[in-house]
């Protein structure tokens, strides 16, 4: 187990370097960012040159990348154009996005799996058909439509919530944005669980458990559900990364100042340091989430062993 984790961690290093390099090059291709700092006029050449020197933009790209990586390993992610340290931006943005992701994942897991179990056990019944239809509708509607619609109905028309999230971004404020963010994945989780449950219902170990006279609840939760969760866990694990990075649209709609906001602003202002820093962290989150998923397999299914 320990060796397996170590191997996986080692594998992350090339992925990490490759990902940062790609992002670094992509942001660089967009051209000189200094020219955009002076509005609709020419930056005066002396100040522009001085800024370039300070941000290291006068060096060749490979040298910029090496310096950047060197700094990253000492925990310095550089400075954004507005004079803030990127680490400072991260320390304000990530907690917000993590809260949003937690809300989304909880909704996804609780509602998605519950619906999946119910429909899986009642295949072909009216409730199954209804939920299937509903998930189909949710999957086919893009997030921004759900988001704007909920914002308009709950925020403006009925006045149940505030249309935008405040600076504190507390859990209670994030419920609706979390729901919007989770909606599509929720539908997938429901469908995955449903199929998996329906399949395993007829398997030998379930029949054995029933024959032993175990209570129905125990059969479903301990035997049926646990074995059916493997594909669902895989999906949710990869979804954590996708939710954190993909919250740009949701964060924009509800004015949440999280990772999506910083990334968007970084891209619009061509701020290499911000974009590369945030994406690097997202890549790490993605890698770690995947590792955790693989380890969870062993917990769910004792037949799976890692050496």
């Amino acid at each position, binding site marked *: 187990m320990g060796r397996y984790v170590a191997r996986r961690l080692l594998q992350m290093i090339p992925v990490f370097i490759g990902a940062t390099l790609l992002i670094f090059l992509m942001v660089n291709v967009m051209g000189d960012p200094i020219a955009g700092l002076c509005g609709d006029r020419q930056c*005066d050449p002396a100040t522009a040159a001085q800024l370039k020197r300070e941000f290291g933009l006068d060096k060749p790209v490979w040298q910029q990348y090496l310096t950047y990586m060197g700094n990253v390993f000492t925990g310095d992610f550089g400075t954004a154009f*507005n004079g803030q340290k990127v680490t400072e931006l991260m320390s304000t943005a990530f907690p917000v996005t993590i809260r949003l992701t937690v809300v989304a994942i909880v909704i996804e897991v609780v509602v998605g799996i519950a619906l999946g179990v119910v429909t899986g056990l009642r295949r072909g019944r009216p409730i199954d058909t209804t939920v299937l239809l509903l998930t189909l509708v949710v999957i086919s509607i893009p997030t921004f439509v759900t988001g704007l619609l909920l914002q308009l109905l709950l925020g403006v028309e009925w006045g149940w919530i505030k249309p935008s999230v405040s600076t504190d971004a507390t859990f209670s404020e994030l419920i609706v944005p979390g729901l919007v963010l989770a909606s599509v994945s929720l539908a997938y989780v429901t469908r995955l669980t449903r199929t998996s449950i329906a399949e395993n219902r007829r398997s030998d170990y379930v029949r054995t458990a029933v024959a032993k006279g175990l209570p129905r609840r125990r059969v479903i939760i301990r035997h049926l559900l646990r074995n059916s969760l493997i594909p669902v866990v895989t999906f949710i694990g990869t979804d954590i990364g996708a939710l954190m990075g993909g919250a*740009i649209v949701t964060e924009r709609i509800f*004015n949440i100042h999280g990772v999506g906001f910083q990334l968007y602003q970084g891209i619009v*202002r061509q701020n290499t340091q911000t974009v590369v820093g945030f994406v690097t962290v997202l890549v790490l989150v993605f890698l770690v989430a995947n590792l955790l998923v693989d380890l969870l397999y062993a917990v769910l299914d004792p037949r799976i062993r890692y050496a």
Partner: protein
Amino acid sequence: MRGATHAKWAACAAAVALAATACGGGGSSGSGGGGDGSAVLSASWGDPQNPLEPANTNEVQGGKVLDMVFRGLKRYDPKTGKATDMLADKIETTDSQNFTVTVKSGWKFSNGEAVTAKSFVDAWNYGASLKNNQKNAYFFGYIEGYDKTHPDSGSQSADTLTGLKVTGTNAFTVKLTQKFSTFPDTLGYAAYSPLPSTFFSDHAGWLKKPVGNGPYTISSYTKGSQMQLKKWDGYTGADKAQNGGVTLKVYTDNNTAYTDLMAGNLDLVDDIPASQLKNVKSDLGGRYINTPAGIIQTLAFPYYDKNWNKSGSDKVRQGLSMAINRDQITTTIFQKTRTPATDWTSPVLGTAGGFQDGLCGDSCKYNPTEAKKLVQEGGGIPGGQVKITYNADTGSHKEWVDAVCNSINNALGNDKACVGNPVGTFADFRNQIGQHKMTGPFRAGWQMDYPLIQNFLQPLYYTNASSNDGLWSNKDFDKLVDQANAETDTSKAIKLFQQAEGVVRDNMAAIPLWYQNGSAGYSDRLSNVALNPFSVPVYNEIKVG
């Protein structure tokens, strides 16, 4: 960029829904009158692009804060745009080149420090010093010694401007390198604000929570998210805040800000999304303002390209100008938030300030037959096609460039006469302009620094001026501008600037398109809301309740 297009789409859907349900909330009950002097209002904001130093802030979002926290020697009247004395007791000159400034005594920074002549001189020296990376440094470019503290290349050989001398607690002298009669009127710009000594001794601390001498103090600042400003009771100026404070909230998307305004979650939005302009009157009724701002949009030309700088080119430019149906485009695309331009300045200057309605004459009137004739006389369009370059990432530039091209194509009876040439990002667009890579007209927006006719002409059309991106050069124009700057009598100086503007017109150095307005919407809690000529809300005059 997917997000952006999606949001636009959805906003349309939302707009339809809004209109259908006649959204807007109930009428206010029993409010009006004097207003509550201690109530706080909330207003939309954007994350400032640069650190909040006066000489480093060159965009509206940071400008909003500076306008509340600082007062300079002069202040532009929010209504007329005229420069009036604020901290300046008097600014005297006999030769338009050497000025003696006397600062009113009794003014203080909100930390208790007195505002003296030194507060100004230190601040200006800081702004002009190359090592401080101040983006507005060029404002100090007329002051003697600027070439030493801010050389075009290499490192600076002095840290202070020789043209600035403190001559007493409240007096200092300014020596310029050339005659510049309207120099005192430029001093209302934020870059000329005084700075307290803590700015220099604890710079990082100051940036976390800027301290100034204006009617508001900053009580808390969460970077990238929100700023709370409180009325400063110790403020000695005449323009005290009429409300208890302002909370500036950062919005990533102005559509969200607008929705918040609709839901009563926000009091003031000063950037109405383009997609909502159609509904704004029915949504807000009288709580919508749309007033001229000191912004003009033009099409500039690359005079470094032979094809655009040969005999007859001026006729082609005139022809193109006459082929653009400004009325139709401003009505249909901008919902009258822009006004067809008839000169090269802005209506906010007022006729006394040099704005001359109709100076452009027939050249700016839509006349397809004459347009076609002129273009032919001028030898046709270089290369057979006009490519209008613009940046596609911000604003609704694509919409109007396409409309301008359609208008030109229809007028000239040639489907391929004009096409838009989008550039991905604003920075890249500015880069290509800076490297003189334009092969045809390009979008040029000009937001004034101070409401003077000089600011609309000299930086843009004077030979090798800082924002003369097309490298237009004309001896007559330069001579008239020099004369105007040397003229001590303001009205005579303005006349000379107008003559210079006439040279721009006769050569059609750039095609004026339209004047841009500032727009804002506000909740029924507020009254006395106005935008100043820089399209910044006049926060201190807003009454709440």
